[in-house]
C-alpha cells in the first residue's frame, strides 16, 4: 500500500521482520523497535488503522493535539512522537496510571485525568485554537463528546474520530448507529471523509471532519 498522506515523523519501516507504521520515541507497551523506531500496530490503535487504510487525516506532523480517550497511552504515545504539544484526556484511573508512564519521558505530552464529556473541567489547561482533536472514547454519546469539545479547535482544525457502534447501541445495526452519529456531528462539523475500520477494528467508523 502506498502512503502519500503519512505525517512527518510517521514512517513505514521494517521492524522485527515486518514492515509497518512506526514513530520515533521511548517504548511504551513492549512494542518491537529498531534503530529508535517503534512499531505502531494498527490492530491496537484506531488512528494507526486509519493511516493504514489510507484515510486523509490532514495530519502533517508537529500539530497541537487534544486526544480524548487516551486510555493506557498506546496510541497517544505515537501521536506525541510525531505531533507537537499533545493533551491526553483519560477518565479511568487504572489506565491513566499507564498513561503516566508514557507521558513521563515525553515532555510535550500532557496527561489529564478528566471526563471528556465535561470540557469545562480542562479548558483552564488545554489551549484554544488546536490543530487536531483525536477522539476514541468508548461511551454512549460519542458525537456529543465531539460537539462539546469543538470549542478547542481552530476554525480550520481537524477532528479525527473513531466511532464505536457497540458503545452507542449494542443491538442496533452498526450502519444505523453510524448514520445517527454522523447526523449529530453535522450540526457542529463538516464531514470530510468516513471509512469503516473493520479490517482492524470491528464495527468502528473512522471520521475526519472540520468545524462548520
Amino acid at each position, binding site marked *: 500500500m502506498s502512503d502519500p498522506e503519512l505525517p512527518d515523523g510517521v514512517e513505514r519501516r521494517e521492524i522485527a521482520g515486518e514492515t509497518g507504521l512506526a514513530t520515533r520515541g521511548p517504548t511504551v507497551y513492549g512494542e518491537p523497535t529498531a534503530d529508535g523506531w517503534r512499531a505502531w500496530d494498527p490492530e491496537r490503535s484506531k488512528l494507526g488503522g486509519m493511516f493504514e487504510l489510507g484515510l486523509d487525516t490532514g495530519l502533517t506532523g508537529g500539530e497541537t493535539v487534544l486526544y480524548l480517550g487516551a486510555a493506557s497511552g498506546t496510541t497517544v504515545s505515537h501521536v506525541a512522537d510525531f505531533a507537537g504539544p499533545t493533551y491526553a484526556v483519560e477518565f479511568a*484511573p*487504572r489506565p491513566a496510571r499507564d498513561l*503516566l508512564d508514557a507521558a513521563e519521558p515525553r515532555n510535550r505530552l500532557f496527561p*489529564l*485525568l478528566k471526563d471528556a464529556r465535561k470540557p469545562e473541567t480542562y*479548558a*483552564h489547561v488545554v*489551549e484554544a485554537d488546536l490543530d487536531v482533536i483525536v477522539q476514541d472514547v468508548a461511551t454512549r454519546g460519542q458525537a456529543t463528546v465531539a460537539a462539546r469539545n469543538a470549542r478547542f479547535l481552530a476554525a480550520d482544525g481537524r477532528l479525527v474520530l473513531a466511532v464505536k457502534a457497540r458503545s452507542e447501541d*449494542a443491538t442496533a445495526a452498526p450502519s444505523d448507529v453510524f448514520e445517527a452519529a454522523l447526523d449529530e456531528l453535522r450540526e457542529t462539523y463538516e464531514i470530510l471523509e468516513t471509512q469503516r475500520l473493520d479490517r482492524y477494528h470491528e464495527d468502528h467508523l473512522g471520521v475526519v471532519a472540520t468545524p462548520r
Partner: protein
Amino acid sequence: MTDTDADAGWFAGHAADEAAGSDETAARDRIATGEADRPRDWPALAVESGFAESTDEYYDRLHDATVAATRASVRERERADDQQLIHAVRAMDDCERTANELAERAAEWAGSLFDDAEPGIDGARAVAAREPETELERRAVSLAECVADLAAERDALAETIDRIAPAVAPNLAEMAGPELAARLIALTGGLESLAKKPSGTVQVLGAEDALFAHLSGRAPSPKHGIIYTHDYVRNTRPEDRGSAARALAGKLTLAARVDHYAGERRETLHEELRERMATIRGRAQNETGGDADDTTEGDA
C-alpha cells in the same frame, strides 16, 4: 482584560503561591479541580503574565504540573476503598430512617402548636423556618431543624456515594448505579467478598428472609433481592422478572470480579447485558407472533 484572561488559567496566581512557597502544590490542585468556560491561548497568556519566559518553558512547566497532578489524582481515586463506601451507604440509610422517624414526632408536636404544620421531611423543613415565640415553640422548631439537617446530610451522603462508587468499582457502579453498587458491597461486607459470591447468591442478596423461608419449605424461592431496585428487574413484566434478575445478577457478579481483580472498565460486559436484556424484554413483544423465545435460558 488580559489580567482577567490569565486569571482563568491553571497558572493563575502563581506569584502569590511562589511567595508562599507552595507553587507546585497549588498548581497541581488547580489542574485537578479548576474550571474554565472556554479555552484561551494559555501559552501566550502565561508568557505575557510572567509565569514563563517562553512558550517552551511554559510547556516544560505544564508537563511537570500535569504529570504531578494526574499522578496525585490517580492515587487518590485508586485509594477510595470499599470500606469507606460501606460506611457511607450505611450512614445514609441511618440518616434517612432517623430523619423520617423524627419528622413524625416533630410534625405531631408542631401540629399542636401551629395551625398549618404538614407531616414528613418537607413539613419539618417548613416548621424549621418559623420564628418561635415561646419556649415550647423553640424546642419544637429546633427539633424540626434537626430533621432538616439530617435530611440534608442524607442527600450529601448520596452525592458522595455517587462520586466514590465509580472509583471503587467502575463496572459495578456503571451497571447497577452507584447506590445499588454500594448496597451490594455493603451487604457482602466488601468488594472482594462480593466478587467471590456465586451469581445465584447475588441475585437474592437482601432477600434473606424469603430465602430462609424457602429453604425451610414454607415459600417459593425468591426471584430477586436488592437488585429489584434496578430498572432492568423492576420495569420488566412480572413473568420475565426471574430471567431478568438472573441475567442481571450474572453480569453484576462478573462486573464485581473485574473491578476487584482487574480494576478497569470492560465494555463487553455492559454490551452483553444490554443485548441479553433486549432479548428478554423482546419476549413481551414477540408473544403475539408465536414463540420465538430464546434457548439460552440458563446462560446467566
